[in-house]
Each structure stands twice: as structure tokens, then as C-alpha cells.
């Protein structure tokens, strides 16, 4: 029983970590390479979720929903980059905070106008709606396993992109020697738009995948944004490897905290107090983790490329 619970929670933590990784990878690339604080990254996640929910309902196919979400998030991301953010790369971080905050307000309201204030609900595709017995006798939702698989595949793909392709080489070079890369005849503006669009598509993918698990609603982007920032700070800004490590760490700590802290507290306190105190400690567990990591290693767990 306890072993089963532990295994389930571990998988839940991995699944949450993988979702966070999809968001954190894009955010940390934009952050590490363009030195841009993008508070509106969660907005792209929300766009992905809404478009996936709508396209899935219209077409009856979850695959089409996900593809539509990828396209929409990439398009919205590239548009934001070209209209509002491109001029801000060399500016103060504070200007970026203000501008991207403005972008959040705009899209939250736009989504409210287009889809209304009510939350949307999306069910997982039929093929993934059942459970799988990972170990005989322990059923686990297939959809969550699917997310873990997708996240790991994306992680490997991203690694291949950054390490083995010409675009990846330019991304790495652009992170440290932007002017040099420009002087060699590379169109830096286009490169940055591409990086931003890749990050946006990853966020959109996370949104589309999250759709069947939680309510698709306005403000969902901001809730997860803070978690994502915690992840990339723990991992070390600009490092995709750090984003993966940070995401899995945060996912596991958060899930274990929620599942086991109230139980552990019940050993010492009466159930009501234990639940309330346990819940409050578990909700700050990731912040404690981040503060501890930063006090121990002020620049995160992994150094960024050249950083």
C-alpha cells in the first residue's frame, strides 16, 4: 500500500516535472540567450491550452488539437517578439518586466473576450483515457505516462537541436558572442525570432497537454509562470540541462510535499491541524528549496553556456 502510494506519487511528480520542463526550457533559452525576462511566457501556455481545447472539440481529434496549439503558440510568440519585445533586448530588465506584464494583461482580456469567462474542459483522447499496469496490480493513468514520454522525447530532441545542428550552434554562439555572430553574417534578428518561437511552441505544447488534466481558464499562465521561474533559477539561468534537473526536482518535491507532509504531520497533531499545517508547509516547500539552493549556490545548480 505505502510502496504503491510512493510509486504513484513519484510518477505524478515526474509528470509535473516534465510539464514544468516544457515551459522552463523555452523560458531559460530566451532568458539565457537574449537576456530577456519574459513574464508573458505563461500567456503562450494559456494560448496553447485554449486553442487545443477548441480545435479538439471542433475536429474530434486530440492530435489536431495539439498541432493547432503548437502553430498558434508559435505564431503568437513570433508576433509578440517582432512587435513588442525585439526593441527591449538591450534595455533594462525592468523595462522588459513592465512590457511583458502589459502583454499578459492584453492576452488575458483577449482570451476572455473570445472564449468567455467560463473555464473549458477537455477530456484525454480515447486511446489514452484508460490506465496501464506499470507493475502488476498497480494501475496508473495512461495519459500521465504519455506526458512523461512526450516530455522526455522533447528533452532529447532539444538536446539534439542545440548540440548537433547549425541552428543550435548559432544559439550557443549567440548566447555568448552576439555581436561576433552578427559580424559573421548571421541574421541575429531572425535567429532570435526563431528561438522565441521555439520556446513559445514548447509552452503551447505544455498548455495543450495540460488541458485534459486541469481547467482551461484565464490566469492559468500566471499560476504556472512562478513555478517555472523557480525551476530555471534552481537549475541556473540559460541552462537547458539545469531546467530539466530543476523541473524534476520541483515536480517531485512539490508532489511529495502535498502527498506525504499532511500524513507525516498526523503522527504528531490532530487531523485537522495536521492537514492545514501540512498543506501550508507543502505549498512553500518549493520556495524553501529555491532559497536553500540559492543560499548554497547563488547562481543555481548548472552554469549556462559560457555564462
Amino acid at each position: 500500500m505505502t510502496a504503491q502510494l510512493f510509486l504513484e506519487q513519484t510518477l505524478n511528480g515526474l509528470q509535473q516535472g516534465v510539464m514544468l520542463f516544457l515551459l522552463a526550457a523555452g523560458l531559460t533559452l530566451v532568458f539565457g540567450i537574449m537576456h530577456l525576462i519574459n513574464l508573458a511566457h505563461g500567456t503562450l501556455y494559456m494560448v496553447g491550452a485554449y486553442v487545443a481545447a477548441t480545435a479538439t472539440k471542433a475536429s474530434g481529434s486530440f492530435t489536431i488539437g495539439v498541432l493547432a496549439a503548437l502553430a498558434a503558440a508559435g505564431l503568437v510568440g513570433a508576433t509578440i517578439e517582432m512587435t513588442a519585445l525585439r526593441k527591449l533586448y538591450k534595455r533594462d530588465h525592468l523595462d522588459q518586466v513592465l512590457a511583458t506584464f502589459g502583454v499578459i494583461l492584453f492576452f488575458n482580456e483577449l482570451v476572455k473576450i473570445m472564449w468567455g469567462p467560463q473555464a473549458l474542459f477537455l477530456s484525454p483522447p480515447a486511446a489514452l483515457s484508460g490506465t496501464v499496469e506499470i507493475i502488476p496490480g498497480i494501475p496508473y493513468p495512461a495519459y500521465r505516462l504519455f506526458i512523461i514520454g512526450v516530455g522526455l522525447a522533447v528533452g532529447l530532441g532539444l538536446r539534439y537541436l542545440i548540440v548537433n545542428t547549425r541552428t543550435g550552434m548559432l544559439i550557443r554562439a549567440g548566447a555568448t558572442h552576439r555581436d561576433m555572430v552578427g559580424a559573421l553574417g548571421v541574421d541575429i534578428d531572425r535567429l532570435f525570432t526563431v528561438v522565441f518561437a521555439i520556446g513559445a511552441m514548447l509552452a503551447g505544447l505544455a498548455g495543450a497537454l495540460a488541458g485534459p488534466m486541469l481547467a482551461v481558464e484565464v490566469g492559468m499562465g500566471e499560476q504556472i509562470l512562478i513555478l517555472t521561474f523557480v525551476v530555471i533559477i534552481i537549475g541556473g539561468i540559460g541552462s537547458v540541462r539545469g531546467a530539466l534537473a530543476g523541473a524534476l526536482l520541483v515536480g517531485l518535491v512539490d508532489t511529495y510535499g502535498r502527498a506525504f507532509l499532511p500524513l507525516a504531520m498526523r503522527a504528531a497533531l490532530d487531523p485537522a491541524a495536521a492537514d492545514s499545517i501540512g498543506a501550508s508547509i507543502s505549498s512553500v516547500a518549493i520556495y524553501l528549496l529555491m532559497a536553500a539552493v540559492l543560499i548554497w549556490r547563488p547562481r543555481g545548480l548548472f552554469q549556462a553556456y559560457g555564462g
Partner: protein
Amino acid sequence: MTGGRKRIVNTAGLALLLVLPALAQAADSPFFVSVATRVLIYGLAALSLDLILGYGGMVSFGHAAFVGLGAYAVGILAHHHADGSLIPFLPGAWEGSAQALIQWPLAMLVGGLFALVIGALSLRTSGVYFIMITLAFAQMLYHFMVSLPTYGGQDGLSLWQRSELPLIDLNDDVAFYYVALVLLLLALVVVRRLIASPFGMVLRGARQNEARLVSLGVPATRYKLTAFVIAGAIAGLAGALLANHTEFVGPGMMHWTRSGEILIMVILGGVGTLYGAIVGAATLLLLEEGLAGLTEHWMIFLGPFLVFVVLFARRGIYGWLAGREAGDD
């Protein structure tokens, strides 16, 4: 004509604040006094953030925590005073108090003390890491207050009455407005003197080149921490006023979105100009109020407005109003 334009802007602003209640009376919209009081209170919070942000280069993303702590200090004292119970975990038997002269300094003390602890730990990091660790501490305090059922938990505490001041009745909205105005002006004078002093010079030096200061033998971190504590105390006072203004204290006051709002006010008004912080608070709150009256979907206008300010008014709204000398406080 040094500072001519700036002086005109400042004089006009002060004159407007002084006669505002009379104007609201004449226009038969007393509700506006309440909105203006909110502007003053948030102006105070934004001013305190600008001290560390604009002059010390410390981007605190958890400033609302100090506002919330100040508000809770007032709320908790008032709560125990109202039902006559003792304050737990406090040495001696104290049933709280309704006196502003006790509540408000205590709010500043609490804000300053927490700023000392949080600042000491956070100043080990810098840059973006500093932003995030201040946010983390603020979120911890937010969740802590959410989990305290004694003081309302998620629902917060309602105040039975506003704080009591000798001679002045704070329940009168106009009187309360002027008290808030006096405190804001007082804070403005204090912070202005502070940043013009040798202390302020070190603080500005730390923003520009901390390594150079340290190599000159100046303990820059100690100066930054002192500024952080002063800012925490002033934010605590803003919290005390806010609790009185809304007659309510809740964890929502400490949520990270509130910290973001205060940060936005400072940037919007113009970082590194103390008046700008107040202008930023006024702009954001009045835009919210005004646009909300026009359309339900007011944020669709506010969002692009913020982007435009960033792109085209690079020194913030106050910098745009007061011109070149805006930052020479």
C-alpha cells in the same frame, strides 16, 4: 532655469493633492477621496520600493510582503483589542491596542525586522536571482498567513474600527486622506534627505559599481541592507494605512501579483525618481478605475498602454512630464 519644468510639475501636483477633497466635494463625488487615499497609500509603498530599486539597484519582487506584514500588525492588534483575548506567543499579557500611535510604529517595526532577515539572506545573491529569492520569501509569508486560521486564513480579518488618533477622527474619510498625505510627504522628505546624504551616495555607488566600492573598503552590502530595512519599515507603514483604509486585512495583500503591481508603479512612473513612484501609483490606479468605468474589458487597453510607455517614454511618465532633471532629487 534649472529644474524649472520639474518645479512646475511638482508644485502643481502638490497643489492638486492639497485641494483634492474640496474638489471632490464640489463635484459631489466623495468616492473620489477614497480612490485618492488609495493612490497616496500605494504611492508610499512605491516610494519605499524606489529607494532600494532606483537608488540601490535592488529589484525586490516581494515588496507586498512588507505591506502585508504592516497590515497584519494593525489587524492582529485590533483583533485582540476587540475581543479582549491575549496575543499568543508574545511575552507578557497584551490584549492588543486600537491606538494608531502604538499600531503604526509597530507595523513599521515588523516590516523593518522582516526586511532585515529577508534582506540579509537575499543580498547573498544578485541580479535575477535576487528578484526571485525576494519573491520566494514573500510567497512563503503569503502561504503562512493563508494557513493561520486564528487570523482568518484565506478569508482574512475585518477590522471593527479604524485606528484611534488623538484629536483626529480617522473614520472621517477626508481627515484620513490628509493623514495619509502628511505621512507620504514626510516619507518623501526623509527619503530625499537620505539619498542626498553620504549614505545615499554609497547606495548609488553600489548600484553603479559595487566591486569598486568594496575595493575602496566600503562595506556596500551593509549599506544596501540598511536601505532594504528602511524600505521595509516604510512599506509596513503603507500596510498599516491600507488596513485602515479598507478596514480589512487579508493574505491577498501579500500575493506576488501585488508585489508586481507595486513594481509596475515604480517603473511606470520612472525608476530613480521619488515623485515618479507616486505618479506611477496614481497612473496605474486611476487608469484601472477610469477604464473599468468605461468598459468591462479595460485590461485590453491597459496592457498595450504599458507596452507603449516602455517603448516610447523611456524615463517613465514622470521623466516624460518633468524632463531632463526628473532624476535629480
